[in-house]
């Protein structure tokens, strides 16, 4: 795809963003030949103190995007920007960068070494980065993560902690480095319902106290409703809808977002739109709109009635540009769908 990169806004605003990705594509060699376009043209800007929920099914590229933002994967094209500067992939530059962008994974039990005490787990980051005042850092990080008094947890081992406490230790490990950004990949999906709320409340508090920026990768729209300022919906490597959480969830524009929302178990009364099949193989991205083979609007003839069916099958909707609001300006609500934004030129 050679769709032109859209402008990413004035240089003036770049200062406002902590991390940004600009027309990013990430590809892998497919197992049976072919190239998998895991991330296929994504623009995203994260401002300081913002909580963004990135939602989509497995295979939509959300984890690859998160890994690329962390510098764990290199883009095939496009760039990752940190405070307006392009990320360099030398060992030293990456190490410095990773101190500012930390990762929290889904399963805290898998993230923690069972033979390391809580103190060792949290101190590992500061040690690796040669930071001073190790004990002070560990103590502050644990208490920020809600494990108080911190000394009581120093010598405990993961098996002595509950699932929620383990996730707090993982979060403390990230906080010990004073990061600007935390990327959390399904941070509560392996936790019990009662603990889930507590961890989400902790994330809100960290944003408030430390001005942290959070990118939460999740399939859980309830989580997004609970804590996110903004939602980015991904499908097969692209952002298909984005905007303020309340806008997107109360008034979803893209058929895919509507389908996702309809299967949230809490949405009693709305008719479920269960899409058939699974996300297609990223080595074989469908032509036209990549969602059209599963799209309920195409299936039910809505697209045909609106006269966009041909476009759905042959023209890829324009890549959404990064949302970089200027000052107090309201964030927009965009969707990459021909039904929402009719294709530029009608097919003759």
């Amino acid at each position, binding site marked *: 795809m050679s769709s032109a990169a859209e402008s990413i806004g004035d240089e003036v605003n770049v200062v406002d963003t902590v991390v940004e990705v600009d027309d990013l594509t990430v590809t892998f060699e497919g197992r049976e030949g072919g190239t998998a376009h895991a991330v296929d043209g994504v623009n995203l800007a994260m401002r300081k103190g913002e909580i963004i929920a990135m939602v989509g*099914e497995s295979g939509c590229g959300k984890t690859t995007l998160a890994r690329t933002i962390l510098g764990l994967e290199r883009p095939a094209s496009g760039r990752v920007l940190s405070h307006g500067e392009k990320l360099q992939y030398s060992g030293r530059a990456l190490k410095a960068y990773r101190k500012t962008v930390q990762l929290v994974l889904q399963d805290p039990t898998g993230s923690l070494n069972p033979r390391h005490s809580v103190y060792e787990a949290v101190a590992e980051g500061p040690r690796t980065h040669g930071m001073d005042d190790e004990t002070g850092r560990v103590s502050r990080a644990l208490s920020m993560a809600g494990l108080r008094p911190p000394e009581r947890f120093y010598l405990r081992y993961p098996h002595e902690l509950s699932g929620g406490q383990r996730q707090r230790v993982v979060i403390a490990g990230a906080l010990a480095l004073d990061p600007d950004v935390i990327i959390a990949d399904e941070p509560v999906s392996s936790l019990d319902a009662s603990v889930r709320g507590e961890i989400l409340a902790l994330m809100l508090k960290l944003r408030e106290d430390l001005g942290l920026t959070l990118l939460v990768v999740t399939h859980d729209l309830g989580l997004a409703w609970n804590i996110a300022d903004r939602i980015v919906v991904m499908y097969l490597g692209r952002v298909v809808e984005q905007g303020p959480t309340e806008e997107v969830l109360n008034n979803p524009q893209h058929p895919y977002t509507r389908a996702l929302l309809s299967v949230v178990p809490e949405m009693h009364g709305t008719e479920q739109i269960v899409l058939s099949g699974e996300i297609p193989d990223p080595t074989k991205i469908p032509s036209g709109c990549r969602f059209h083979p599963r799209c309920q609007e195409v299936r039910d003839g809505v697209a045909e009635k609106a006269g966009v069916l041909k476009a759905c099958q042959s023209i890829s909707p324009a890549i959404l540009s990064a949302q970089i609001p200027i000052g107090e300006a309201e964030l927009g609500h965009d969707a990459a769908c021909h039904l929402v934004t009719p294709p530029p030129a009608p097919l003759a």
Partner: protein
Amino acid sequence: MAVLDMRDVSLTYHPAEGPVPAVRNVNLSVNAGEVVGVAGESGCGKSTLISTVLRLYPKTATVDGEVLVDGENIFDMKWNRMRAVRWGEAAVVFQGALHSLNPIQRIGKQLVEPILVHDKGATEASAKKKVRELLEQVGLPARHANAYPHQLSGGQKQRIMIALALTCDPKVLLCDEPTTALDVMVQAQILDLLKGIARERSMGMLIISHDLSVLSTNCDRIAIMYAGQVVEQGPALDVFQHPAHPYTRALMGAFPTIGDRESRYAPSGLPGDPPFPGDLPSGCSFHPRCPIATDECTTAHVALEPVAPGRDAACIHINQGVGAP
């Protein structure tokens, strides 16, 4: 008619540190064609409860009460009969099923094996034919019989696990967290499938999950467990929309209603951890975490009491009007 009837079932583990009552006096029945959900936090005893149905608990554990599968008490069965009942009368779709398939055997072979073991009259050809039908029933093309597990997605593997449990036409299907590792969309597909199978085959189905919201839309009835006991039960949607027990209300609060402005930036949880079953609090086991606990709760004996038609809850405050549905 109840195909699974648990009467006053208790199970106690006996590690060196002292007895651990993991399931305490549970009464639960599942009718043919009915889907019943059991929800609760990890450690509440829900997986242990399933283990009693097929006697999958360790030899050292002691059990009490009766588990009737199609009218026959599991606890009284001789070993030979027990072996026939497992898979034949009651089958399990285990948690973490995605790793339960043999990675170096074709799907078809793994599906044929239990049929040949359990059905003495089955031939290789008849078993293969049945496998093809089963695959179609769980929404997969019959050619998947030739695939290896790694060639399938998570949702497809879960469908295989369901087909595997159905190979011997059980009357009861027990599902332990059947959708936990799956995506929302695939989750909805799998639950739809399970519900359809229960209806079509008039099978009783017991689904266990920590995700109350998943159960609420897909089960006919639901039971909420805490510290080894059922603390609330009733029609699923009713329990979901009007929870009576304070624990159920806390669990429900964890899943916000999208569109409800009050829950924006206000995630709700339940402080504290569930008690260790070997060291239960006095009185009502939930009292140390309960937002409405009084002194009385530290000593009171709580048991399930009717709170509305078809609804029971175990809380001494409910009859006093607090949280009545």
